[in-house]
C-alpha cells in the first residue's frame, strides 16, 4: 500500500494537536459535504451528518490501525453515517443512464466522427482560462448524479486510488470505472460547451 498522505496529520491529531485536526477538516470538509448531500434530503442534514462523522473520526482515531488510508477510513465513516441518516439506499448503476456518452448523431453510420469534438484541450493550460474553468467544473460536479459525483469527487478531486474508492463506496472496480467514465464524460461536455458548441 502506498504511504498514507495524511499519516503525519493523523499522528499529530492523536498527540493532541488541534491545528492538525483543523487542517484535516479544511482538506476534507468540502468533499464530505458534497457526498453527504447525495444521501440526505437537505444541506442542513448533510452538515449534521458530516459533523457527526468528524466526531466519530475523533472517537475512533485512537483505534485507527492504518490498515487502510486515513481518507478511506474517514469517507467510510461518513458514508455509513449518511446511509443511516438518509432516505436513499445504495443502488447499482441506474439503467436509465447507460446511453452513449457522446450523442449518436455526432457519428456517421460507420461510427466515425461526422461532428468531431471542437479542439480546446490545449487551451486549458492557460492559467487564466484554467482558473475560470475550475469554478465551472466544481458546479458541474455538483450537478452529476449521486454515484458519479461520489466517484469523481473521491477519485479526481480528492485523488483517492480506484481501490480506495471501491472500499469507501463498497462497489466493484468495474462499476467504479463505469461511474467515473460517465461522470468525466459529462464534465467534458459541460466544459466543452464553455469553449464552444460542446457536443
Amino acid at each position, binding site marked *: 500500500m502506498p504511504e498514507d498522505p495524511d499519516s503525519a496529520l493523523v499522528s499529530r491529531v492523536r498527540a493532541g494537536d*488541534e491545528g492538525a485536526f483543523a487542517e484535516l477538516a479544511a482538506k476534507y*470538509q468540502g468533499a464530505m459535504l458534497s457526498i453527504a448531500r447525495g444521501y440526505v434530503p437537505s444541506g442542513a442534514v448533510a452538515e449534521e451528518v458530516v459533523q457527526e462523522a468528524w466526531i466519530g473520526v475523533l472517537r475512533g482515531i485512537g483505534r485507527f490501525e492504518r490498515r487502510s488510508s486515513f481518507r478511506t477510513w474517514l469517507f467510510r465513516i461518513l458514508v455509513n453515517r449518511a446511509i443511516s441518516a438518509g432516505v436513499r439506499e445504495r443502488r447499482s448503476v441506474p439503467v436509465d443512464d447507460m446511453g452513449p456518452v457522446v450523442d449518436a448523431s455526432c457519428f456517421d453510420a460507420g461510427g466515425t466522427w461526422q461532428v*468531431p469534438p471542437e*479542439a480546446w484541450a490545449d487551451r486549458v493550460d492557460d492559467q487564466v482560462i*484554467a482558473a475560470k474553468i475550475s469554478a465551472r467544473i466544481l458546479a458541474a460536479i455538483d450537478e452529476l448524479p449521486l454515484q458519479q459525483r461520489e466517484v469523481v469527487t473521491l477519485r479526481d478531486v480528492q485523488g483517492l486510488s480506484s481501490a480506495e474508492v471501491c472500499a469507501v463506496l463498497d462497489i466493484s472496480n468495474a462499476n467504479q470505472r463505469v461511474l467515473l467514465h460517465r461522470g468525466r464524460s459529462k464534465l467534458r461536455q459541460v466544459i466543452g460547451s464553455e469553449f464552444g458548441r460542446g457536443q
Partner: protein
Amino acid sequence: MSRLRFRPRRDVVCREAVELVTDYLEDALPQARRRRFEAHLSQCPDCPEYLAQMRAIVALAGSITPDDLTPHMRQEFINVYRRWRDEEARDLL
C-alpha cells in the same frame, strides 16, 4: 502447444473509442484491445483531441483546491476537538 485463436481482428471506430477512454486511462483494457485502441488513435484525426479533453478534465478536477475554512468554521472544528479531548480525559478518570 498453445492453441491458436483466430478471432477476427476488428478495428476500433470513433464511436467505440470514446467509450474506451476511461478504461484506457485506468489501464484496464486487455492488451489486445488496448493495442487496437492505440492503433485507432494513431490514425484518427479527432479522437486524440477527445482523449486530451478527458485528460484535461481529470487535471482540472484535480486542481480544485479545498476551500480554506473560514475563521469561524476553523474555530468550530477546534471546539469540536477540545470537547473530544475533554471527553477522553473524563473517560480516563
